[in-house]
């Protein structure tokens, strides 16, 4: 199929439709609004429903209803709106419901601002809702990868009967790049026997509620069920890309747009003879610990590169390296990440370690 130029947000929306998503409910917020705007007209063409809800709370709870009915359902938001979705995400996890939730990240606490940022790593990977859950978090670095990951996200959600989060950012959402779109698929809402549907006479009642209420043992096996489910995700779903990490003395860890800047930094650094490499997590959770097992003894230190103030991913990097290597952090808030600064920091680190 020929490539077309598409904005990240719109390409992601189109890819979800092509994956068989026929329900969207959400609320506009910059830099995510184009997803809603696009689906408002495009969903009609494929025979689905797109609802601009009165709030993010309604958006995530309507999504829960559609997912309970067996539909492939999507909601999308950014920063402040993602906070409002958290209760719903906890309910999706507690109810074993597959769905896809996209956070087009921006900067700041509270209202923050509409600018580019990677401020939600902790909330994405730790879960901002109550309880005892995890979610797979996919983090694309380009418009094409937004399409590819979104297309597979619904399968992944159904494989585990669990919500999947996609963490893009303002740059990827607003950017236009050439993209190849996948084939259109239809999803049968009767694919799974757990999905709710009108009851025929004599049929047992189906309900979607806390999952262990379905079980005859009163839910005593629920902890083991959870451990097995999350353990399987950790074992099977770690994804990453390693870039020139084989001989690198300083290895960056960066995802999303920051990984793009990190790749430019590698080109600059290597021209100066500095052995810089990159591990790019594609799943933020499960964090790709396996990528760090592959690192050789030549690595002197790790540089965590993120567009935020506190270096939210740094703890995961320290855990993944077994605290055996020094880990430093480079971040920006108002300004774009700079490959020039990365190279300067790498030089300093080489003189130190």
């Amino acid at each position: 199929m020929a490539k077309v130029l598409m904005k990240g947000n719109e390409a992601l929306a189109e890819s979800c439709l092509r994956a068989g998503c026929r329900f969207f409910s959400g609320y506009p917020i910059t830099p995510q609004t184009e997803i809603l705007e696009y689906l408002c007209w495009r969903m009609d063409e494929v025979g689905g429903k797109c609802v601009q809800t009165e709030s993010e709370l309604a958006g995530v709870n309507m999504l829960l209803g559609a997912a309970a009915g067996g539909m492939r359902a999507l909601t999308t938001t950014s920063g402040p709106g993602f906070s409002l979705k958290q209760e719903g995400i906890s309910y999706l996890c507690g109810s074993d419901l597959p769905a896809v939730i996209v956070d087009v990240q921006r900067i700041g606490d509270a209202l923050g601002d509409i600018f580019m940022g990677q401020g939600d790593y902790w909330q994405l990977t730790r879960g901002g809702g109550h309880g005892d859950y995890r979610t797979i978090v996919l983090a694309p670095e380009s418009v094409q990868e937004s399409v590819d990951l979104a297309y597979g996200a619904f399968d992944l959600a159904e494989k585990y009967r669990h919500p999947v989060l996609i963490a893009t950012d303002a740059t990827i959402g607003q950017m236009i790049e050439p993209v190849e779109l996948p084939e259109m698929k239809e999803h049968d809402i009767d694919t799974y026997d757990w999905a709710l549907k009108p009851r025929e006479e004599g049929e047992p009642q189906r309900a979607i509620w806390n999952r262990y209420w379905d079980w005859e043992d009163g839910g005593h096996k629920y902890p083991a069920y959870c451990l097995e489910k999350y353990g399987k995700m950790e074992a099977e779903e770690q994804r990453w890309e390693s870039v020139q990490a084989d001989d690198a003395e300083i290895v960056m860890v960066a995802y999303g747009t920051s990984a793009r800047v990190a790749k430019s930094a590698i080109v600059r650094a290597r021209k100066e003879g500095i052995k810089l490499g990159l591990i790019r997590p594609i799943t933020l959770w499960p964090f790709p610990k396996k990528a760090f097992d592959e690192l050789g003894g030549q690595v002197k230190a790790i540089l965590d590169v993120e567009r935020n103030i506190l270096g939210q991913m740094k703890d995961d990097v320290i855990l993944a390296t077994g605290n055996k290597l020094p880990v430093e952090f480079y971040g920006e808030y108002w300004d774009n990440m700079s490959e020039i600064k990365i190279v300067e920091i790498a030089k300093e680190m080489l003189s130190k370690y």
Partner: protein
Amino acid sequence: MIEIICSGIGGQGVLVAGMVLADIAMEDGKNVSWYPSYGFEMRGGAANCEVKIGDEDLMSPYCLEPDILLTMSESAIDTFEERLKPGGVLLVNSSLVSKDRKYRDDIKVFKVPATEIANELDNHRGTNIIMLGALAGASDLYDEDHVRAGMEHYFGKKGKNNPKNVEAFNAGVEAAQAQK
């Protein structure tokens, strides 16, 4: 890697000028990213897009040292001139910029009275295309015939090719080449 920033005032068509260049790059089989200013932007406010074109794998979408700066307002020059690579091309819509303005002496400046040319051609919305033609005529990185064909292809795909575009484009090429 080629870096281009197109900057001006919302409504002048700077984002479209950048999109034509992005489309040409895609049709040439290159990697390209087009990243706009967004959010607060509106007709009459500042607007810009950063276009990065390369053969390599995916790289940063941010332009650190643009090769070409296409500006359509004085404020655009204020914001971006400093970033232009030494030896780079600065395209100025001289209709809207003070004649006494001083520019860096290590860059190539092309002054194109795009707004006036557009008025002469009775094509008021064509200033961006005039500037695009000027870019093709001014920069050694581009061949004017290739850009003209690329522009027609871009608008053709959208189903709205207007013969006035070519006229405007050619006027821009001429204005730039007269200064070479």
